[in-house]
């Protein structure tokens, strides 16, 4: 993209006006929020939708004959269609509202307990968040299926040839993230999905970290399941999406029983509602779902090309500046990565660095990032992770670097 068009369409100062929280001070310093991979900030247009919902049409959905209920139902279903369009799902009922990525994964893993048999194999990548490991381990305990791990290399990338060796006619399911939360690596999911389908294995992609930066096209990917969380996409917490191919969603049993998910109920037999309601038991996060739709509108309005190019600029600039610091070690150096930098400084504990950065108004994450297997691979207790969003600035990167140098000199 040439810089001229970029300037016309992308003005970070103007965008920051949408995020009141970015004006905050923390410990006496202006906030530099660099923990976007954990949760993103919420822009005013999304907040407005939340206020509008509670001010004007808060009601339970799919049930009432009254006007408010109808309005809320319409808005909720419109949000589903926004999400469908965004991910280019073929049908709106292939979009299931969840409470987040974790819920979506558990829903699918639970469904597969009715499908897997003892000795079946499922493949996980070495780069996963605990959310995409533990539900499958539980599934294996229940069914006797075997969990195998696609290994990673020093650069923080999956070793594709090893995956080709692991996959076989016994493989029933492959699940991995689109983008690693701890390292930012973008995984070659297109190739992996194709290969998995060649042995009739289903694929679940954890898109929690990808969805804020990359617009995934589920039909083009031909993926079976794709999950994401609104709170990492400028939306509210407690709501997310599970995309599933219709044929798979029909095949899986319901996850939770309750209202909304039934067709008829007698004490002898209950028949389940059709998609998507079969997987949406109980009153959902109505306002959250509608706000999720607004967040997707907001991101699309900024434009995913603009998002990718501005975040990439921040990533390159920050990486270059960090590498000038003595003892710097960056984990995850794939050429194909999102704006996440996981690092340590030789001899210093990530917790100490994070504590001092916080004192200077810089918000980063420290620890194992819910990805202990990756930390074990590198034989470290954890890292400091800075993750950038399109609303961050070069000035914030500079403050982060200065604060880091200050912390280093205090700790050494």
């Amino acid at each position, binding site marked *: 993209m040439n810089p001229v068009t970029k300037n016309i369409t992308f003005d970070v100062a103007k965008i920051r006006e949408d995020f009141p929280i970015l004006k905050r001070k923390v410990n006496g310093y202006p906030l530099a929020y660099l923990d976007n991979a954990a949760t993103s900030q919420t822009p005013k247009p999304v907040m407005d939708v939340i206020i509008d919902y509670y001010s004007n049409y808060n009601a339970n959905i799919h049930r009432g004959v009254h006007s408010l209920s109808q309005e809320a139902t319409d808005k909720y279903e419109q949000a589903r269609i926004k999400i469908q369009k965004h991910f280019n799902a073929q049908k709106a009922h292939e979009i299931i509202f969840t409470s987040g990525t974790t819920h979506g994964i558990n829903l699918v893993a639970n469904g597969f307990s009715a499908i897997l048999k003892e000795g079946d194999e499922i493949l996980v990548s070495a780069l996963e968040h605990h959310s995409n490991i533990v539900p499958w381990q539980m599934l294996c305990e229940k069914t006797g299926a075997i969990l195998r791990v696609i290994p990673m290399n020093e650069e923080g990338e999956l070793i594709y040839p090893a995956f080709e060796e692991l996959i076989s006619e016994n493989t029933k399911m492959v699940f991995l993230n689109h983008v690693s939360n701890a390292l930012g690596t973008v995984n070659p999911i297109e190739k992996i999905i194709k290969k998995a389908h060649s042995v009739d294995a289903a694929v679940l992609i954890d898109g929690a970290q990808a969805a804020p930066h990359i617009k995934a096209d589920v039909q083009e990917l031909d993926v079976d399941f794709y999950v994401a969380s609104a709170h990492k996409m400028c939306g509210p917490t407690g709501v997310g999406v599970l995309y599933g191919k219709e044929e798979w969603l029909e095949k899986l049993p319901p996850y939770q029983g309750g209202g909304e998910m039934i067709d008829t109920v007698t004490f002898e037999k209950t028949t389940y509602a059709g998609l998507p309601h079969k997987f949406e038991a109980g009153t959902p996060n109505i306002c959250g779902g509608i706000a999720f739709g607004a967040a997707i509108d907001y991101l699309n309005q900024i434009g995913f090309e603009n998002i990718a190019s501005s975040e990439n600029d921040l990533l390159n600039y920050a990486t270059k500046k960090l590498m000038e610091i003595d003892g710097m070690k960056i984990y995850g150096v794939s050429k194909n990565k999102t704006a996440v930098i996981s690092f340590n400084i030789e001899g210093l*504990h990530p917790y*100490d660095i994070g504590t001092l950065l916080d*004192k200077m108004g810089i918000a980063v994450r420290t*620890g194992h990032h819910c990805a202990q297997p990756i930390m074990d691979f590198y034989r470290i207790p*954890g890292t400091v992770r800075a993750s950038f969003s399109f609303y961050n600035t070069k000035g914030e990167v500079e403050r982060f670097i200065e604060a880091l140098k200050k912390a280093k000199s*205090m700790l050494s």
Partner: protein
Amino acid sequence: MSNIKEIQEEVVDEFSMFDDWMQRYEYMIELGKSLPLIDDKYKIDENLIKGCQSKVWVHAELDDDKLVFTADSDAIITKGIVAILIRVFSNQHPSAIIEADTHFIDEIGLKEHLSPTRANGLVSMIKQLKMYAVAYQTQLN
């Protein structure tokens, strides 16, 4: 030998000399570096305090009727905090440790570290020191 309250006052006095957070933290880092190390044989999982992003080991033993703590951490700021706690609580009678309040942590500007949701385990650390005291108290009786 000063009692716990006196030592706490000393610590509060020392910290009151600092004008800003940076001096406070520099001091804590220094304290951390000067913490007498725990004997390596006590750096075992049983002595590890849970709930910390950094590792903290605490060992306790009786010297007459006084309880002596040694500790270590892999993070230096945590170690500084541990050093302060040990200065306050070590070499005291278990009953005094059990009764001691920890209000001084507020006064020296480390309140943020006292939040039970903060993953540094200061709260767990204090709890652990007091649990040792309870255990040794029964032994003394």
